[in-house]
């Protein structure tokens, strides 16, 4: 009897392993072109950054009024998307939602890549990056900037651990079974990274308990990272930022962006790696439900964020709201398009099961991510244009903000790096947790590795 089970187990295991690791061995042309495309982009951005480094931030559109432009808006965007790691982990770790298992590693990959770029773009935003160390030498504990830097670094570490730890058994499987199929360097890499995993009960015990602790730890840390990011604005005395709900407003906004990013990534991974059997309509359906849920909460915070000051119309707030809500305001059109495509329509479509299928979900995901980026621009920049007290004797042009080509190139370049990191991680590592999926299917992995 147990012989049969064992044979059966082995068969399932072999199939899963083969399906989930196949992409490690291939290098299709499409992938090479994609990476080449990203690298070209990044190269242009590095050239643009060279100019900025040499000439200073004067080559950007930022001036005395708008001193946080696309860079900081993108910083907030990166942090927001990175929060998906926590969203998914919390759903698994705290709510015990099993459906999310295949999604979790993709989420962690996105989280790690984006939070790394959040750190990078802060440095890009510095006119004198050589003075970065001063932040640590002279930073004040009273400053939200220090809290932010602390929590971003902590989040990078946890994201890395949450990506790496659950991958150990998979790496060992590849090491054990695929020596012949892989280039030498690649196998060696897995060999080293697998840390000599053999899958003893003891090792599994350590793995489970550590991951469990981290899954819990990442929840407050992730809330912390985005709350503190929101405080960077909310603790500055400005119309449009002067809000007590900025923390939850940012966090829920981040969940929406993150859910979108995961949907997009899952769609392409499923398509190109032919994983239809593992990432099914069911997963997209569940992901869609989660997306609608967080988007509704976000909508609720949007309502608060605009309706409450809009009812009182304090002078500066009124000016700020005018720039957003009037079609003649500087950001009116962008605001309505963003809210429509980045929030309202996704909610409406997401309510129907018909649209919670892979392809529509991918489209909705793109709308959410692009919308999230524009929303960060809308949160950061219009506020800066309307200071409580005007700065005296500045040129007329300082009252507006027009990002320069260099600035846009660099911003897109950093986004490209984030996408590149996700692409590489998803190419060179198993995107779905082999051992967890096997365990789902009833294979006794501890014995079977």
């Amino acid at each position: 009897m147990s012989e049969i089970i064992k044979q059966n187990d082995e068969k399932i295991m072999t199939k899963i392993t083969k399906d989930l690791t196949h992409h490690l061995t291939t290098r299709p042309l499409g992938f090479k072109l994609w990476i080449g495309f990203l690298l070209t982009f990044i190269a242009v951005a590095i050239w643009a950054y060279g100019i900025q480094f040499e000439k200073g931030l004067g080559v950007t559109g930022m001036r005395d009024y708008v001193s946080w432009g696309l860079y900081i808006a993108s910083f907030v965007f990166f942090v927001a998307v990175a929060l998906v790691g926590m969203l998914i982990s919390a759903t698994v770790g705290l709510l015990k939602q099993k459906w999310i298992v295949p999604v979790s590693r993709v989420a962690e990959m996105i989280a790690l890549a984006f939070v790394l770029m959040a750190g990078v773009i802060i440095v890009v935003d510095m006119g004198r990056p050589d003075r970065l160390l001063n932040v640590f030498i002279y930073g004040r504990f009273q400053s939200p900037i220090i809290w932010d830097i602390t929590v971003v670094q902590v989040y990078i570490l946890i994201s890395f651990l949450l990506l790496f730890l659950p991958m150990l058994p998979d790496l060992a499987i590849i090491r054990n079974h695929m020596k012949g199929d892989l280039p030498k360097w690649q196998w060696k890499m897995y060999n080293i990274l697998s840390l000599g995993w053999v899958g003893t009960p003891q090792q599994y015990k350590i793995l489970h308990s550590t991951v469990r602790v981290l899954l819990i730890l990442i929840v407050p840390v992730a809330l912390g990272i985005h709350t503190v990011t929101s405080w960077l604005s909310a603790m500055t005395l400005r119309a449009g930022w002067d809000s007590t709900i900025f923390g939850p407003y940012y966090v829920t906004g981040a969940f929406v962006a993150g859910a979108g990013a995961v949907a997009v990534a899952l769609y392409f991974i499923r398509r190109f790696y032919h994983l239809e059997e593992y990432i099914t309509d069911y997963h997209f359906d569940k992901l869609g439900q989660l997306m609608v849920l967080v988007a509704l909460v976000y909508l609720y915070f949007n309502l608060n964020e605009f309706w409450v000051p809009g009812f009182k119309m304090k002078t500066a707030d009124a000016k700020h709201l005018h720039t957003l809500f009037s079609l003649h305001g500087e950001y009116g059109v962008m605001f309505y398009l963003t809210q429509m495509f980045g929030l309202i329509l996704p909610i409406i479509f997401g309510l129907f099961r018909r649209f919670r299928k892979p392809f529509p979900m991918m489209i909705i995901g793109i709308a959410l991510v692009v919308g999230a980026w524009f929303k960060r621009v809308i949160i950061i920049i219009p506020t800066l244009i309307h200071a409580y007290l005007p700065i005296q004797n500045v040129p007329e042009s300082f009252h507006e903000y027009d990002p320069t080509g260099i600035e846009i190139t660099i911003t897109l370049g950093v986004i490209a790096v984030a996408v590149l990191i996700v692409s590489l991680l998803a190419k060179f590592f198993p995107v779905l947790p082999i051992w967890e999926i096997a365990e789902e299917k009833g294979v006794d992995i501890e014995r079977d590795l």
Partner: protein
Amino acid sequence: MKKSILNIIGLISISLMIAASAQAQWKIDDGLKDAKLKVDYNEDNITAGKAIYDSRCKACHRDIVTTEKNDRALPSAPNLGNKEFQSTNTDGEMFCKISYGNGGGMPPFEKQISDVDKWKVIAFLRSYYPAYKASTASTQAAAPVNSFKGTLNAIKLSYDSENNKVVAQLSGQDGDGNIVNPKGVKVSIYVKRYFGELPLCDGEKTDANGMVSIPLGNLPTDTLGFIIVKASAANNAVSTESKLKVSDGYHWKNPLDGRHLWAVRAKTPLWLLITYLTVTISVLAIIAWAFFQLFRIYNLRER
């Protein structure tokens, strides 16, 4: 050319504005129409009237100067020293104008200033109109302007710490050249401030010892306890400025002292520092523990 047309249009619109505000009317009580000053027209009442004028009227009417016609453009408050106003208004009419205002630019002072004080203000206004004839009764009581006849030599300021008073001591010579303490000379004392000067007294007369002493109250000083006082007597015949030490120094709490959110890093509030360090260190400790678990896993590898 264009400019002058604009000017004309401007003038017309201003006149229209004035015409619109001309609906505002002065109200004169019949019984008061021909009334004469109801306080004595003397130096004391004029001085008292000046003090009231300075505090209640000057903000709008500014300094009074004797002129033929009002030299200030409406709708701002007129120069009340102009002869046209002075000659066409009786004391009683002035009284009514001050009491009731005109429902326009001039506010009513009926309740804000007592009747006696209103008459004193009018006495002060009249002092700029040489042709003014007070009623015989009140002129008789008018006091001479300066009781001291002679030359003033100097004015000296000191601080009387026992009574917390600033003392101005005059010295001078009488008509025969004898050194005396001038009595009945008007003295003005001011404390210097960043903006404008704070009057301690304006036109206070010296006593028999040639002294004027004014209570100082609780004036803030500089950090070493000094204030700068200026004094002059008999319309600037003599004047002085001195730095007086009147306290042991003004002690203020420097908002940069102590632990605050806005202070430098070394002065981080303790609660914040402790919170930050506790949270950060505990989280880092857990992460370090997690990395150590990697090491433990590695130690359990196949050898």
